[in-house]
């Protein structure tokens, strides 16, 4: 891709903008349904586009595979952890009222924010790891392995 000057320049400009848009979708989740999944996909697109133009090795310097795997688990734990917090403070699992008992509606907002954050992290990581799995060339299967 070294000779594709236009692609390289546009990608550098776009990658940041795509990320910004991802965060906009993420934090708009409070006002409209969804959010985390779409934002996660969009955020992953920024990395995938960068990887397509500047090679997988470059993008893996920013997002190494081990970090992607951990992020996958971290997002899930953030989601479930929110539920466990309300469970430990004497409410039902995932009852967001527990996050602000005196202002239940604030609790709901905070709960959605945390849960959608977890979804966003996990979806970004899953999308990236699917991309890494596709572009990571598997070793050729030798005759003796059959």
């Amino acid at each position, binding site marked *: 891709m070294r000779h594709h000057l236009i692609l390289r320049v546009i990608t550098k400009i776009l990658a940041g903008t795509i990320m910004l848009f991802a965060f906009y979708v993420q934090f708009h989740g409070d006002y409209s349904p969804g959010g985390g999944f779409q934002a996660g996909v969009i955020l992953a697109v920024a990395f995938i586009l960068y990887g397509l133009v500047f090679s997988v090795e470059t993008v893996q310097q920013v997002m190494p595979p081990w970090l992607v795997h951990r992020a996958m*688990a971290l997002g899930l734990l953030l989601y479930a952890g929110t539920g*466990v917090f309300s469970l430990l403070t004497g*409410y*039902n699992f995932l009852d967001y009222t527990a996050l602000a008992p005196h202002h239940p509606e604030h609790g709901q907002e905070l709960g959605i924010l945390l849960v959608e954050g977890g979804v966003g992290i996990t979806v970004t990581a899953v999308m990236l790891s699917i991309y890494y799995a596709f572009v990571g060339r598997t070793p050729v299967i030798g005759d003796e392995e059959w």
Partner: protein
Amino acid sequence: MSGQVAGDALAGHAAGVVETATAAERALGLADHLPVLVVLVPFLAAPLVVLLGARRLAWPITFAAAFFSLAAALSLLSGVLGGDAISYHIGGWAPPLGIEYRIDAANAFVMVIVSAIAVAILPYARTSIAAEIPARQHVLFHALFLLALAGLLGVAATGDAFNLFVFLEISSLATYVLVAMGAYRDKRALTTAFNYLLMGTTGATFFVIGIGFLYMSTGTLNMADLAQLIAQQPGNRTIHAGFAFIIVGMGLKVAMYPLHLWLPGAYTYAPSAVSAFLAATATKVAVYVLLRFLFTVFGPQYTFEAAELTWVILPLALLAMFAASFIAIFQVNFKKMLAYSSIAQIGYMLLGIAMLSQTALTGAIVHLFNHAITKATLFMVIGAYVLRAGGAFYRDIEGIGRVMPWTSAAGVIGGLSLIGVPGTAGFVSKWLLVQGALEKGWWWMALLVVASSLLAVVYVWKGIETAYLRAPREDVDRREAPLTMLVPIWIMALSTIWFGLSAEWTVGAAGTAAEALMSGASQLLISGGAGH
């Protein structure tokens, strides 16, 4: 109008249900959260294992989570054996709008089976997996095992039809990958896993289409609510179509006879510990889902009178009992033989469902448990053979009974239970099925059950003959299996004898479960009829 319906549903919930008090009334303790914790703990442990990424921590965390689930499931079962149901509202949203976890004797019993098998297999898996899967994959193996476990428990725990689909997918996706991990020993595991993925996903898609149809005509996903609303519109074509989609979809997951093609390969090429876990749990949970939909959601009247499902399930069950047993006789791979035998055993469970009587249904539910421990024993024995002899073909294990006497003796016990010899667990459930048939006056059915057991004698004998009466091969190193495998194998083998001799607990629990399924459904139908 819709408010009226929701109000009716809520009233239906209050009857005979121990409601967990809402947060406004009092702070909830640990015991109140058990319906969700039984699923949540293994589900949380899975990402924790991945996040820590340490091979040494993976097994202890997995085992602790499975053990917690077993304790929670046992405590839940003891709480609902009186015939009550426990209802837990996720997020504090009341059903039918919110997701409800609803524990009664039927699903508590299934959760005990699943978590007990997991606890028994994990110590065994530690040694077996070390030999069959490269060390760098061990962390992911344990995470997948936990996800499969959490998914299966979730399917059982939930009272929400769509939530059930989600958990079904969680467990299935984890299972496909677990099966594919057998590729380090035999590359055919990859094509098998792909095959399983296609068939399993087709089944799940059919299931979710069916749920969609039900949602379209009732506007609810809560199972108790669905049951009421379905009973109010008996002639609805959309519901008929949904019913058909759900039965075929779950038929694929259950491996009902003509839809069983994914099963032999998946059980044969998966890693030994995975085969044992799957054979003992995955199809059992699918049978539970079938029971739940046939009896609770649609109700026996709808299922067996309007749709005349008896005459659909019964021939297929008989076909499975004979055809699959017959195919099992001619296998040359021990694992594949057991896989075909599993299809035949699922035939017995379907038979118990199709006969539609308290005794036969109890027999089917007891057979869930008895077949789970029997097949787990046998697949664990084969895992030990694979570890020492390097393969599960009959030619690999000729005369192995003499060099591995303890492992093989446990295998013989499992085989006897598979046939249904008195004194083993398999006898109890077949006895109940025969009794159920005789109660209905179907003496020919009782004869067929016995006749198909004779086929089991043939294929079990073939295994015993290979292991004991052939000369041991000289070219392979043969020692007794390590104690870490032998102890779990013998715990399972002894439990097949224990539950064969003292069947009060299993038959009692299964009887309560059958009662909950049969009577709960008819009660709902009566209250639905009153609403007309």
